[in-house]
């Protein structure tokens, strides 16, 4: 279901990540033009950053979401001056963003439960239209503000 449940054990997270890794590899294979063995270190590094983020989130007594820590770990791994950052980025650059994101959408679509369908029926098509305007307004609002600030700031580039 869609409600947040209790946190899954780390081993189960790792198992799920193995499945995700296999799907990412399959997407690259279908895309063509990749040497699949050469992609393995990059995929393994993404899994390592993810696991490290989960572990940090559990060790620290903060309530910041796990995704925040995953993002911080990956940012640090590729940060200039951090040991092996160049090596890390070189492995990642072999991966295609499209092939990393496509499997995620398969999870989203196959995870649509009967309860979700029932809630949709209750809320009706109205909530879908309202949601689309929510996404549109959020994106346009953020872009407009960012654009205005960038235009007002003296550029150093």
């Amino acid at each position, binding site marked *: 279901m869609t409600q*947040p449940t209790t946190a899954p054990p780390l081993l189960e*997270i790792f198992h*799920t*990540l193995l*499945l*995700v890794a*296999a*799907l*990412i590899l399959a*997407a690259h294979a279908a895309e063509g033009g990749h040497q699949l063995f050469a992609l393995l270190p990059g995929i393994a590094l993404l899994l390592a950053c*993810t696991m490290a*983020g989960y572990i940090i989130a559990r060790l620290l007594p903060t309530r910041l979401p796990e*995704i*925040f820590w*995953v*993002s911080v770990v*990956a940012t640090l791994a*590729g*940060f*200039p001056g*951090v040991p092996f950052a160049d090596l*890390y980025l070189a492995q990642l650059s072999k*991966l295609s*963003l*499209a092939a*990393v994101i*496509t*499997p*995620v*959408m*398969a*999870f*989203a*679509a*196959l*995870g*649509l*439960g*009967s309860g979700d369908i029932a*809630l949709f029926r209750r809320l009706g098509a*109205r*909530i879908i239209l*309202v*949601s689309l305007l*929510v*996404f549109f*307004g*959020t*994106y*346009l*609002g*953020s*872009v*407009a*503000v*960012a*654009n205005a*600030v*960038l*235009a007002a700031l003296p550029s150093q580039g």
Partner: protein
Amino acid sequence: MTSSSSALRPRILLLWRLHILLLSATLIATLVGTVRIPIASFEIILLPLVFAFIAGLLLNPNVTRITRNLLDEREVRAAASSLGIAVMPLMAFLSSYIGPSISEIADAGAALVLQELGNLGTMLFAMPLAVVVFKMGREALGATFSIAREGGLAFIFSAYGGDSPEAKGVLGVYICGTFFGTAFFAIMPGVIASLDWFDLRALAMGCGTGSASMTAACSAALADLYPASADEIAAFAASSNLITAVTGVLVTVFITLPVAELYYRVLSRQGGGQ
């Protein structure tokens, strides 16, 4: 003995029927590839992720009958609960490009922090539709005060209670976001970018306002239009997403929610007509 929580949770690696369907959706989508539909002066770009979503829906036993003998509700639930884990490598991938672009990001630092105020745009169009056209009540406030990701959901639950109309509204948009939001974020930025009104950095920062998969879909859409700037786009989108995670709650409490309450009162007085 197994504990109740592990008994409720099927072991993900044993659900081979689910693996086959996930693999099928992924392969079909990647083989279809990127489809461009030109409309007037811009084009709608459909990335493989949109087709993965469509293929997944067609293979979902709750949507069509094709796989009703293959997949049961237990496996569907396993896919849904894996979604939150499956987005993590994606977030790691995008965040890795922050470092190489750090000087450009520092240059745009003020824009990155202030664009969080752009969240006021969330309710600008959506709340009038919900209140004036659809005559929704307090559900409208929950539905349109934020982009309704986990933080917004938790916030409404704690501020108004899980049974409140506000909670129904935010939950509705949350579910739409999980299932349609990413596809929408894969299509919309390309259309807005083709208006040629906005700095590419601003377009990339706007990508970070939603969930990880929305951020990634939006970055992929922009990268498809501007392949030479792909790394910079990922870096700006990921830093914006990171900053949203930190400042989001403050902006919600002190700015977004008070403004949403005010806006709701004005709209319901005008449009309610009671």
